[in-house]
């Protein structure tokens, strides 16, 4: 079984990771959004588990949230109500958007089985006072993780965790850089699977697999690489089927800038004698999330990626009711289109209405 197949299996059956981990009596801490520092969780000896959703239609969550709330959030809440996240010893959210903030309150009110906490990160980058504020919050968070695990987090253990996670980031980036080739070695949907699997697994296991994979695909070439090169961006697209759809319509997805992929690993921690400071700066000096101000850096980063990867077209997947990204879309569209044709597509997180989506993607790709 190739490494990609192993990873696909992990993405489709993540419960095995949990079972393995918990059989050793260790704890699992769920997190959502990139401003929850996994390294702190890891340094306490616990498994940081990224909470992805499932492509199911929303059921009970609509009785709690109004139907005009981000579908991903409602999906997570549905899963919580259905006790599918009961294996988590805690769920940590952070201050990224309206939806997540509400998820925190709703979760704490209606779901007893998993305690939920929200980290109050600033939404301004590159700001000394913001760093200070975030540092305070992270010190509290560190204390919480120590209490939950019963383990002390030392500077040394934190440094080691940062190194480990940075290694994962480097390896994923190395893999993704191979897609600059005229014929990439892995497809977009494969890349997303690899990325999500690496996020789900303990990094001690992910890193050797990634090295193995990079070796395996050195001379690999995907089929059907004739079509236009596509950059996909959006927020929490956690379903490789969506990338597959673009590829089925003839696009060659060479970049996927998503919370479930590049946004997570494109940047790495800078050297710093103070590991907590390193983590603070790592988070607040990377322009990947639309919730962070200023946005111009993010537009520039995307344009740079489009150039580097010789992209012919950009597809921007908007999850319905995501206010943060939706507001930016006219501005985004204008700025990106200065250099590359861009299509903004609203998607349902549950991927209903795929037929219409296919048609629009096809029309866009044919035009390129």
């Amino acid at each position, binding site marked *: 079984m190739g490494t990609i197949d192993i990873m696909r299996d992990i993405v489709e059956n993540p419960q095995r990771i949990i079972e393995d981990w918990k059989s050793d009596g260790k704890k699992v801490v769920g997190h959502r959004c990139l401003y929850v520092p996994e390294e702190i969780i890891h340094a306490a000896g616990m498994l940081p588990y990224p909470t992805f959703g499932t492509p199911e239609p929303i059921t009970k969550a609509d009785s709690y949230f109004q139907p*005009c709330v981000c579908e991903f959030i409602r999906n997570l809440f549905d899963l919580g109500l259905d006790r599918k996240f009961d294996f988590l010893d805690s769920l940590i959210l952070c201050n990224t958007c309206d939806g997540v903030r*509400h998820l925190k309150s709703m979760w704490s009110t209606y779901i007893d089985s998993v305690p939920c906490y929200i980290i109050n990160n600033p939404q301004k980058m590159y700001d000394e006072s913001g760093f200070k504020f975030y540092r305070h919050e992270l010190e509290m968070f560190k204390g919480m993780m120590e209490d939950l695990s019963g383990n002390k987090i030392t500077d040394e253990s934190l440094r080691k965790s940062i190194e480990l996670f940075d290694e994962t980031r480097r390896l994923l980036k190395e893999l993704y850089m191979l897609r600059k080739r005229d014929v990439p070695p892995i497809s977009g949907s494969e890349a997303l699977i690899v990325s999500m699997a690496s996020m789900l697994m303990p990094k001690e296991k992910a890193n050797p697999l990634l090295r193995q994979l990079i070796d395996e695909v050195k001379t690999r070439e995907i089929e059907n690489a004739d079509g236009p090169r596509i950059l996909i961006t959006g927020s929490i697209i956690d379903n490789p089927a969506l990338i597959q759809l673009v590829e089925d319509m003839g696009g060659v997805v060479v970049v996927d800038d998503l919370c479930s992929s590049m946004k997570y690993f494109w940047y790495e921690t800078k050297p710093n004698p103070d590991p907590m400071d390193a983590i603070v700066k790592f988070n607040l000096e990377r322009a990947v999330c*639309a919730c962070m*101000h200023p946005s111009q850096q993010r537009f520039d980063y995307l344009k740079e990626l489009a150039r580097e990867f010789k992209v012919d077209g950009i597809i921007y997947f908007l999850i319905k*009711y995501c*206010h943060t990204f939706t507001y930016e879309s006219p*501005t985004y569209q204008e700025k990106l289109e200065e250099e590359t044709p861009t299509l903004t597509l609203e998607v349902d997180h549950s991927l209903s209405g795929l037929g219409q989506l296919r048609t629009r993607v096809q029309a866009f790709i044919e035009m390129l």
Partner: protein
Amino acid sequence: MTIEATTPGKETFTPGRFGLKASEEIFMATFAYYAGLKAAKEEGRPVIWAYGVTPREIFHAVDAPVFYLEHVPFLLGFQQIGSHYMQIAEEHGFSKDVCTSHRCFIGCGLGSEQEREPILEGMFVEPDLIIAGNYPCMSESKAFLCIADRYDCPYYFIDTPINTWGKDPPDYAIEYFEGQLKGALDFMGEHGFNLDWDKLKETVRLSKQILLLFKEIDELRKAIPAPMSSMDGLVTALLLIQVLPPSTVITLYEKVLKEVKERVEKKEGALEEEKLRLMFFGVPPTFNMGVLDSVEKYGAVFAKSLLECAQGGMFDPSGIESFMDPEKPLESIAYRTLVDLINPTSEAMVNYMVGAVKDFNIDGVVAVVKRSCGLIPPYLRQIKDAVYKETGVPTTIFDLDGLDTRDYDDVTTRINLESFIETLLASKRR
């Protein structure tokens, strides 16, 4: 370009009734304020566009003429022309899923001169500076970007932490936000709006007085019969009134207080016999406030409304005496903003609603969902459940966008209200 009454039923829209003479005065003064902005611009004074929830004291302290981004949609809503601007925003690519209030001012900002109707034309001034921020919702943090682009004007972004601590935010949070406010003041200073610390302290002192007056007026709404109409409540909430200079606000509030006190003494209300006291939660139909008055024919009144988008003020003014200290102006403003009910997460609002239902003798809560809002509709269920659990008072939740006439369904709105009232009356009879 003229606006046509294409919305079915628009001919039947009725404005809200003013119960107080003072509220009518406030209403007119608010419109007049925007006319004053034009004069400032003509005199060569730069105009700042600010999102409505910015703590107003910083503007009053530097005498800045401010165009409040979320007030304008309300004022246009009252005139029933807000939707015209939303359409302009939509033509510029803004989805119908983003806040109607923001879509409205984006339309105002991006629209051409021809697209500005006479009413907006009377109020509109181009921005020279923008004070932006992310309080209380993410829409705020994004909606200004296109305006900054269009008018190529500098902006300062105030980052407001959400409230994860309840009534006791830690010092580091207050310090951080104070820093943000100071940053905004410095930014304004760079553009000619010089800060006088004494003036800031004085502004905070006046602000405290305003909040105390607001609190007194609010307390009187507990009286039976309810002395203020829905329109009174909407207009006198700090939402609209805060645009005016603090001394003017104090004068107007004192008038309101006097009138309300008289009405309470004489037991004057819309109805002699109140069969039901309701509370309204959400943005009311600004273009058809008459529908809220219409519940009176069933013997019901909206004794209290929990506004809406109380911007820069305080929903729950209790405790002001202790924390608003003019000698520590930025700290006071910072604390007040952080603990305000509208600041996520929802616990403070939910607790307040439970208390308010008890204190104001409410029999039923009417909560409306503005579909494009990401801030309040999501936690309506929490409020509904908590209020019912603690007080036994039911809440009905239905869709209504108080700013957009295009989506408004008068028939369903009335049936919702009527059905709720009927079921409440039936349970009272038991």
